[in-house]
């Protein structure tokens, strides 16, 4: 879907982006992770030509982007910024409808689409006539997302989209983000410096340092098969939490013992991480949770203690690094 080859961008003597190549598959959620100043934003902005590279190639859907008029290119790529970049002089409704109006959609079609997004993002219609400054940070960020999604572009670029939010708002937006059907079919490249966020949302993570990609892999591989000390060191501090997020219940399946007590009818998929399963204990304090294995359709009902001991058994079987 997106193919980046030997991308270079220098500012004076600073190599902001230093010979980067990677590919992103259709529908994949790729996260560029790294400390501040490592070149994430620069990389991202070259994808919609907000920044022109010194050298290198970028192709989206097989087409070289430098051969397309930038305005047309950008209309096919959603873009979400950290500080939302909403137009303060437009109402929420007008903000979402900017691109449809540029594309001269008819009014009814625009209105329908705006209403649909408002609903999907759990906002009420009464906000449509409010100005962005009257909204909370979390709501503004949702409007920013709605604006980027309004024409249903196949590609979405997000630069620290949740960076300005407090922890509680962020984790609730994370949950919505994962649940939003509109996003499931999109190819997303997201920038963050927050390791937890990357592990929670990414299909693959490109860990960057000083303008280069150090390792590009699935979260669990980054954690359990780091290519070098830098990667290990980068994840060290938050290791336990990351493990809980990257190890899925499926991975523990054999270690989980079924209590057989199905107290309630709710069912969790075994595709979720341990962390999310733990959150279910936290938010719904019950003795057991029910888990269904997506492949075998087998159901297990487990307690908190059983989950934790399964986790440690799984860990003991991992090769020691």
């Amino acid at each position, binding site marked *: 879907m997106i193919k980046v080859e030997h991308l270079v961008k220098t500012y004076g003597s600073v190599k902001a982006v230093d010979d980067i190549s990677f590919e992103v598959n259709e529908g994949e959620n790729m996260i560029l992770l790294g400390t501040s100043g490592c070149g994430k934003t620069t990389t991202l902005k070259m994808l919609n030509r907000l920044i022109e590279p010194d050298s290198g190639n970028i192709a989206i859907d097989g087409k070289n982007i430098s051969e397309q008029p930038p*305005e047309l290119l950008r209309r096919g790529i959603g873009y979400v*910024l950290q500080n939302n*970049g909403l137009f303060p002089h437009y109402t929420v409704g007008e903000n979402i409808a900017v691109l449809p109006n540029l594309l001269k959609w008819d009014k009814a079609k625009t209105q329908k689409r705006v209403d649909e997004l408002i609903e999907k993002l759990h906002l009420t219609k009464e906000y449509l006539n409010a100005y962005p400054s009257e909204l909370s940070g979390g709501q503004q960020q949702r409007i920013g997302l709605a604006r980027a999604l309004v024409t249903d572009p196949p590609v979405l670029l997000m630069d620290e989209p949740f960076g300005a939010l407090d922890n509680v708002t962020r984790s609730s937006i994370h949950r919505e983000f994962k649940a939003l059907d509109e996003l499931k079919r999109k190819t997303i490249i997201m920038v963050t410096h927050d390791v937890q966020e990357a592990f929670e949302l990414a299909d693959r993570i490109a860990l960057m340092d000083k303008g280069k990609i150090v390792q590009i892999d699935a979260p669990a591989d980054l954690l359990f098969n780091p290519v070098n000390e830098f990667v290990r060191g980068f994840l060290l501090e938050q290791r336990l939490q990351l493990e809980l997020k990257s190890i899925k219940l499926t991975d523990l399946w054999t270690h989980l013992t079924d209590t057989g007590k199905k107290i309630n009818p709710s069912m969790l998929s075994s595709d979720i991480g341990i962390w999310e399963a733990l959150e279910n204990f936290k938010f719904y304090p019950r003795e057991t949770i029910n888990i269904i294995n997506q492949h075998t359709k087998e159901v297990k009902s487990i307690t908190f203690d059983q989950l934790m001991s399964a986790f440690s058994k799984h860990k003991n079987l991992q090769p020691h690094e």
Partner: protein
Amino acid sequence: MNEQQQTLLQFMSQQADKLGVQTMQHIGLTFISLFIAVLIGLPLGIYITRKKNISGLVLGIAGILQTIPSIALLGFMIPLLGIGAKPAIVALLLYALLPIIRNTYTGITGVDATVKEAAVAMGMSKWQVLFKVELPLAMPVILAGIRTATVINVGVATLASYIAAGGLGEFIFGGISLNNTNMILAGAIPAALLAIIFDFLLSLVQKLNVKKIKGVVKIAPVLLIILSCLYFIPSAYGGKLTAGFTPEFMGRQDGNLGLISKYGLKIHTIVISDAVMYKAAQEKELDVISGYSTDGRLKAYNLLVLDDDKKIFPPYYAAPIVREDALRKFPELEKTLNLLAGTITDSIMTELNYKTDYLHQSPERVAKDFLVSKKLWRAEKNGKEGVVRIGSKIFGEQYILASMYSMLIKGHTNYDVSTKSGLGGTKIVFDAMTNDQIDFYPEYTGTGLLAILQAPAKTVNELQTSKDSTYNYVQREFSKRYQIKWLKPIGFNNAYALMMREKQAKDLNIKTISNLKRYLESK
């Protein structure tokens, strides 16, 4: 106080026609120039946000333009654009440019970078970003600039009357030279009100939210054009020749009033300042001007004095007038000032004026050369027995006389001197005197009679038979009313005169004011 207000209102209702015309001219001038300034300043301000390397230069030039004194700027305009509306509008527009360019620039550069980036990233073109994002968000700042420019323009437009562009300045400066407070106020109050009202209205627009501003910004050009048109409604120009008279001449019995009543002269007349009148005559912007018979510029600009065949311009003496308490404080003063009495005849004064006005010698040098030739010049004594304060009006002859008196006092007495030259019109210098800011200045008996004493028409008619009786009358009245003494006349006569370019007068065969009237009425 009550009486004062009464008479101001009376004056205003009496002059309601003129006041209306001047107010409309004033609004018109303000907004034509503002309109053009926006047309130039807005795109220029936008342009320099795109070309940051020239922004300093452009803002610098606009800043320098604004520091040029208004009168000087108007003066520069005459050789380029003549007199009247054109140079006034250009001068006003130059003043209005800086706030408009600067605020457009700061407004647009101040727009949140992430908002601009979001606009670009959504696929807006440069123009769409400008019109949909940058301009609307910069609008409150731009409007603040336009508001500043408007207030500046209302103020500077009062000076437009200096170069015959009309406006409320006609009353203000007329009032100053005619010592007529009501006339000054009749111009100044509406001018101040205009500034306050426009400022207030624009502050309301500025505070509107973005939505409503959009609407206002759309009707603004129409409104500006309508207001601009006010300027052209009253000025139905016409006539074969154009006269330019000073505000003082316009309001005096021995000036335009006499021309109308005694000669029945009907000529298209515009009001203009003394400082630019001669230049405008030379540039053929004006055909007939008012002036003084001893003016050096007569010769300098090749002007011909028309013979006053019906004798409406009586000759008057020039003499120093002194505060009586100053005469007591400085016992040597009267004797010293009288050293000049009778020494300067008409032809000498004209010659001296010619030296400053045409040969561009300094008034000090001309004064010293003259005193040396009359053996009146002595080296300075550096006296320490007090300081005598000399005043003068703002034209050449007064500078020369003030210099002479200064040298005489320094050389012949133990007093020191401080000079306050260039005190605008009669009212300003005379008020300075009655308020004990200066001790003496050279004045003319005609001005004393008509502008300061404002003697009733009957008295004026009686006195005009002789210049000595006028002198005696003002001497008596000044002493009685103001405790100011008229010293001995300096010698030369000062009288108003009508002048034309020598060549034109010859071509049209005009030698007298009656000739002029006949020419105007022919065909």
